[in-house]
């Protein structure tokens, strides 16, 4: 009784197969033939197990004399098979190992593989948490990061107070550099987005107002929406994406490179040295960007008004001017100041919290943008309520 199984390996590979024969009654010899490597290892193990199952009570011999090549994965599966069988009370005899095969077989110790599982047990991996545990864990994490944010806010306030009384301690060169990066380099995208938002608002509202003959109100609508709400909001979100993320990445990388430790040892307060210039730059530049966004938003509305609604330039400007009060502009600017602190502060906060290498920097960058946008919208909602009752 003899059966041959060719393992499916494509024609390019050396054929490998397993022959099972019963040499003497009660002894089954399994003879792997050919080349066994990582690709065949699993099939080899399966075949060995099948042979073992088929030959229920017989003595099992694995003859390796016909093996032309054995890699460590295949050798491991043979050893593990032999180990399993021994545990089941059916020891397997491995015979016919040639020089090459013996060398690789001797190198393999299946216990190493088991030891890994043992050491895993002593450091139990967190079991996938259930819903309740998940909620609990999230609560603990959130509480931890809230506490961290509060501590950071405290340090930031202390540093800001110090800077107010010692303006010469502020690193103005860094402030200027950050103003350029946050402000000047952000001009194109802030302008473009605001123009498009202005266009969209004007266009959508004109669709509703035109049938009613209310074309003229488009100017006021765009003006109020942009100046009070959308220009500060869009600017802050763009700055969060461009600069909040950059702050987190820069400071995070500095933490990883021990630059922040070095600063502390040289006697520099990292918050004063790294965070203040960034927050100061954002405080100066974001309101200016917001004014700039106001202008481009109105320009977008004007384009729709003139090209789509047959309003004249003078009419549109006149309508806009008479419907926007100075207080609307200042409201937008006050918002933008708050947003500037949120974006830059949160960006720096996440950077300072980085612990583990490049991955940590990546996570901090994402967290900086996501939580900055969340807090911007939250603050904007608070503004909406407060301004309503004021």
């Amino acid at each position, binding site marked *: 009784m003899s059966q041959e199984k060719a393992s499916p390996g494509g024609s390019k590979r050396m054929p490998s197969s397993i022959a099972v024969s019963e040499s003497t009654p009660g002894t089954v010899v399994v003879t792997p033939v050919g080349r066994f490597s990582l690709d065949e290892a699993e099939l080899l193990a399966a075949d060995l197990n099948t042979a073992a199952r088929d030959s229920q009570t017989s003595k099992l011999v694995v003859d390796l004399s016909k093996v032309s090549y054995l890699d460590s994965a295949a050798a491991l599966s043979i050893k593990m098979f032999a180990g399993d069988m021994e545990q089941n009370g059916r020891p397997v005899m491995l015979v016919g190992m040639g020089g090459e095969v013996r060398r690789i077989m001797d190198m393999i110790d299946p216990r190493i593989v088991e030891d890994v599982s043992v050491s895993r047990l002593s450091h139990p991996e967190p079991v996938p948490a259930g819903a309740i545990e998940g909620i609990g864990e999230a609560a603990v994490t959130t509480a931890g990061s809230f506490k961290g944010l509060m501590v950071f806010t405290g340090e930031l306030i202390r540093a800001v107070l110090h800077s107010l009384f010692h303006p010469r301690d502020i690193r103005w060169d860094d402030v200027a550099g950050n103003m350029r990066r946050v402000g000047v380099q952000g001009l194109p995208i802030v302008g473009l987005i605001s123009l498009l938002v202005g266009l969209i608002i004007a266009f959508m509202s004109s669709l509703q107002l035109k049938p009613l003959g209310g074309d003229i109100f488009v100017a006021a609508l765009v003006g109020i929406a942009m100046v009070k709400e959308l220009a500060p909001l869009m600017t802050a979100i763009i700055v969060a994406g461009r600069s909040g993320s950059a702050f987190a990445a*820069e400071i995070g990388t500095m933490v990883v*490179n*021990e*630059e922040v*430790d*070095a600063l*502390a*040892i*040289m*006697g520099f307060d990292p918050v004063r040295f790294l965070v203040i210039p960034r927050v100061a730059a954002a405080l100066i530049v974001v309101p200016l960007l917001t004014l700039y966004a106001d202008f481009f938003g109105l320009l977008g509305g004007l384009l729709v008004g003139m090209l789509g609604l047959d309003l004249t330039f003078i009419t549109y400007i006149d309508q806009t001017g008479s419907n926007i009060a100075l207080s609307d502009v200042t409201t937008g600017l006050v918002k933008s100041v708050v947003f500037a602190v949120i974006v830059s502060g949160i960006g720096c906060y996440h950077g300072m919290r980085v612990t583990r290498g490049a991955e940590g920097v990546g996570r901090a960058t994402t967290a900086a943008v996501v939580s900055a946008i969340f807090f911007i919208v939250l603050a904007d909602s608070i503004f909406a309520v407060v301004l309503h009752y004021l």
Partner: protein
Amino acid sequence: MQDHEKRDDREVVISVEGMTARLEGNTILEGITFKVFRGEILFIVGRSGSGKTVLMKHMIGLFRPAEGRVLINGVDVHGAGESDWAAVRRRIGVLFQAGGLLGSMTLGDNMALPLEKRSNLSDSLKKSIIRMKLGMVGLADTEHLLPAELSGGMKKRAGLARAMVMDPEILFFDEPSAGLDPVTSVGLDDTIAGINQGMDTTMVIVSHELPSIFKIGHRMIMLDGQQKGIIADGDPHFLQGESRDERVVNFLNRRDA
């Protein structure tokens, strides 16, 4: 040991007293006590993960010990007020593993940082000091370069130059020769030994580079991760031959346990 007796007369500059280090709830070191004497080159050695860097970061005040205390020149590093600590900090320099140079600044600006904070010198004197210190580590005329433009060995030397700007009494090194080729590494050893001899600077060096330990080390303490403490303290050559602790002998003779 005559050497030992002589050492005990010497002035203690750092004293670590019963210090326990805990990070994220894991105890790394437990109840560590040792002294560092003026002018010596002390190596803190041990296998990876034995807490060498953690110990150093506690000694320089970056980490706060869970128990015990660290005194530098008699001042409690973690319990001192800001002004006392600032006075101590002025006397120590640290070379971080990655150099710790600020990537956004040129070498010259990096070197100027400690000066800017701590003294009111004229710009021209500052410049001369910077050039002198860069020259001492073999990096003359590099003050206009950014750290990213330097090789690994140059970064280490630049970090050393910055750590030395204020003529510190104590210099701490975190794995100074990690990632350096053998020749550069020997050069750095010579620089360290030269500064030690020339300026009587106390050196605390975290390292597991045997050649450096034997070449320039006056004394070493060995940490063990399992024991969470010091398992050897003494002259590296003496310990290599005479230590009865298998872990110490294996380490110093590069033998597998």
